[in-house]
């Protein structure tokens, strides 16, 4: 690793101040499970000059039910979310997404905000020592187009320039399915609008903006949520595809639905057409089959990832069924 400054922020304002001072050349560190790996492997040519430690800011690690909402502090560990009785009972998609993230050690270190702000895992991008100077590093091209794209986007390239990487978070689709809001040092954003496709960016945060809290409204009566993950192994892995769904039902009929896939595109991919396919219907083998088909109707798989389309379709079906 190269040398860098490590600054303990005592307040949110101080952290923001540090970020401004370094003007994009600093990174936030909390659990460190993503940022340190990125630095050790020297993935990107520009190395951060400083890490701003926010673990030293009090009052950011909590899970509370307040004012009709569930509030989760930015520094809350994934393991605490996975085990929390209220989250397990009422926001099961989130509890399950946390439980299926990484391994016990990483869940004990990694935070919910860190998880949604994490960098992508494309193996061309992450090859140590900048071995593939790809689009995201200011290089000329995306290596996955002609290379081994078995874990890349099935919904085409991102808007600006053709990066085929996918967003690796398990938490993100759960938050979108639960219609969560993300509070930052500046504003409150719907989870759905938090993730953004861009070169060198996976979210809308400004250089000096910090996620402080996740807020999820109490689920309406008759609602259920579920999260399903497909990965090569039973633990540790990033998803090949995952899917979260929330279904609001009344007298056996679906009133409202939010379904979100992830690891299929550079940002979490909400499949509204699949939602439309089941609204007004009962959850049955037939209706979920339609939802699955609709979810991947726009898929544009690459040479090596057609199988992901089949898996995405299956996970949509199973996530909806699990809400039945």
């Amino acid at each position, binding site marked *: *690793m190269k040398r860098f400054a490590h600054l303990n922020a005592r307040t949110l304002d101080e952290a923001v101040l540090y970020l401004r001072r370094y003007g994009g050349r600093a990174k936030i560190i909390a659990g460190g499970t993503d940022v340190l790996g990125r630095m050790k*492997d020297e993935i990107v040519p520009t190395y951060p000059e400083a890490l701003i430690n926010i673990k030293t800011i009090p009052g950011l690690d909590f899970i509370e039910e307040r004012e009709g909402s569930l509030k989760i502090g930015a520094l809350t560990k994934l393991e605490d979310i996975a085990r929390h009785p209220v989250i397990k009972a009422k926001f099961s998609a989130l509890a399950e997404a946390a439980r299926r993230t990484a391994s016990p050690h990483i869940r004990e270190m990694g935070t919910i905000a860190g998880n949604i702000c994490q960098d992508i*895992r494309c*193996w*061309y991008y992450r*090859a*140590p020592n900048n*071995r*593939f100077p790809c689009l995201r590093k200011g290089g000329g091209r995306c*290596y996955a187009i002609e*290379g*081994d794209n*078995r874990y890349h986007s099935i919904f085409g390239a991102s808007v600006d320039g053709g990066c085929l990487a996918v967003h690796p978070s398990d938490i993100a689709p759960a938050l979108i399915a639960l219609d969560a809001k993300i509070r930052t040092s500046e504003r409150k954003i719907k989870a759905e609008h938090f993730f953004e496709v861009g070169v060198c960016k996976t979210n809308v945060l400004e250089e000096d903006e910090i996620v402080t809290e996740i807020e999820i409204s109490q689920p309406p009566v008759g609602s259920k949520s579920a999260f399903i993950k*497909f990965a*090569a*192994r*039973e*633990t*540790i*892995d*990033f998803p*090949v595809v995952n899917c979260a769904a929330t279904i609001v039902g009344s007298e056996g009929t679906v009133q409202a639905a939010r379904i979100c896939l992830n690891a299929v595109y550079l940002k979490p991919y909400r499949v509204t057409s699949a939602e439309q396919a089941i609204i007004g219907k009962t959850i049955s083998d037939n209706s979920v089959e339609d939802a699955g088909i609709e979810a991947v109707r726009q898929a544009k798989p690459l040479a*090596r*990832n*057609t*199988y992901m389309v*089949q*898996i995405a379709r*299956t*996970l949509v*079906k199973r996530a909806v069924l699990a809400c039945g």
Partner: protein
Amino acid sequence: MKKDPKDQLSNYEYQFIGKPVPRHDAWDKVFGRTKYADDFDMPGMLFGKVLRSSYPAAKILSIDTSGAEKMPGVAAVLTAKDVPNNETVTRFGQTHQVGGFEGLYRVLADKKVRFMGEAVALVAAETEEIAEEALARIKVEYEQLPGVFDPLEAMNPDAYQVGEGDSNIICNYQVRKGDVKEGFSRSHVVVENTYRVPFVEHAFLEPESGIAWIDDSEIITIRVSTQVIEHFRDVADVLGIPHNKVRVIAPMVGGGFGSKEDITVETFLALLTWKTGKPVKMTWTREGSIISSSKRHPYVMKYKTGATRDGKLMAMEAQLISDAGAHVYLSPWVLLYSTVDATGPYDIPNVKVDSYTVLTNNTFTSANRGFGAPQVCFAYESQMDELARRLSLSPLEIRKRNYLRKGDALATGRVLEYGVETEKTAIKALEALGEPSMPSSPTEKIGQGLASGMMSYGRMTFLHDTSRSYVGIELDGSVTVRCGVQDIGGGQASSLASIAAEILGVPMEEIKVFIGDTALTPIAGTTTATRMLYMSGNATLKAATEVKKSLLPKAAEMLEASPEDLVFRDKKVFVRGAPARAIPLADVVKACAADGVQLYNVAQFNAPFRELIDFKTGQGQVFPDFTFGSHAVEVAVDTETGKVRVLKLVACYDVGQAINPLSAEGQIEGGALYGLGYALTEEVILDKGITLTPSFSEYLVPTSVDAPHVKTIMLESRDGAGPFGAKGIGEPSCNSIAPAVANAVANAIGARILDLPLTPEKILRSLQKL
């Protein structure tokens, strides 16, 4: 000794052999007291680092080290021109020189780089950070070359030349038996398929590591994680100094699996310590290890197998092509193993095998647990199931009609003179597997699969393999064993303690085994080829027996009995049937010492020595003996996602005689999981020579959660070439698991996948969902 196969844990007269006892080194490992290579520091030591190539194929136009050399704290920067003998010939661990197997061993890249990760320069510095920074300041000017990354392409005469020679084909072997044309014409069913298996990473816990220093008598001493302390010769040759000026010490090794059979850090360490005069330590990162050390060979295997209507094999034709990567290393040997094992444990009247190993600009390949056997096992066992399906025979039935038996000859003419219990292992494995489980959902399919395999233990007989062991008894009756084994975690040292304990009647706790030191322990050869128990076990057995013999006359005199009636047990000596009249062993030893009786013995065990086989016909003896076994597996396949879950896994092997059943079972369980990764998830993926899987988040080894319960069944024929009739189990234990899984998947989904690993993508494609 009885020759009938006996079931597990049936032990006759032994006190220690066959008894499940914790290994003598187990507690130290559990409590973290074992000092592995990287746990050892020296005052004033420097840190060594390797600069690796930036390209898989390139000319080196110039190297400028001045920037690095100028840095404070940098003690040495070395490139090819600084290495006394940068190019030598690889004859790794080989004392008998035979032709046809040499490869170039180039310490540092010179003029041309052949693979990504090849060492170009070395640095020694006061801290790791300085060394790292120094690497960044070495300026290497490259001219990129096209390279070749597919072995089939590399075989073309006009292909890019990886090395300096005029062909990428390293070598070719042939086996010829009978007339395959005739055999196929008499077959009612002929199955033809092309199988592919990937690069595999060894994935040991402990990456390559060591420390070197010059001792007070000017000896370059290297304490290194290795399977072959005898590389001291190769290191001395590189430095151009006498062999006896280099000493290699192997501490407990945190896993080898074949990748520490080749030289890893030892030459680099020796050069840096020789240049600086200071101790130097070097430990590779995981990424450094994955991109630059050897891998298991990928193979393309064309198989054509024919059988009569009643399932009797008539002919087999196989073409094997292995990707040797960028340097020769052990590729010719690995290929020879595959060539001899290509027919599997079956009696086939007409056989034709043609095999090739080819240079490419991929990471070099060399030894990996199984050494060429698991690749062909995947092919021949898939073929057997396909024949069975076409003939409507059960997988067990077709195998039973073709298994080799003791006294039969392999296609190479070699007659099997030790126990061959393959059929029994298959029957027992299937019995234990039981009835298929019920699917847990309508989209799940259950399948069961069987595969048998054969793999040698002991090195190739034309290498004239030998081992030596010292056994001495101390005045208090405790026992010292000195044997130059490398213990790579398989219990190699502990099994020697069991053998000495058995012969001398001394409890395990009172046996001390000193291992792995070229200066202090008799040279015992490599911990490779599943040879250690066979070779050093026999040497230790011989030495311990000699020590006992030398004590017998005195003991007989003291007990007023005849020597043949004496029993050595519990550190006592007594007359058979009269343990009450026992005398302490220590008293006998003291009395012998007073009389000047020799209280130690150094014994040498020689494997059978044979001459080189005929490479055009394959006829001759290549191996001392084989271990036979079977795996039976049950899988559940999710037909909508392509996910395979292994529900049941049974491994059944004839181990000859389990010296310590706990260790043998550990090897069989470990082998099963090692093979399970090969079957389902493990694959080193390269994009034009660049590794896309340089860490364990991309290279997918089964985790504890993925591991099914492994049911182990050990048969003990007591009919092996090792001590007490033991056979070797380390490598054979992983042999047939991948084809068993593939056969179970084929059974579940009704379609056969010809490439490993069996990924969801391939399964969904076979199910025609894509």
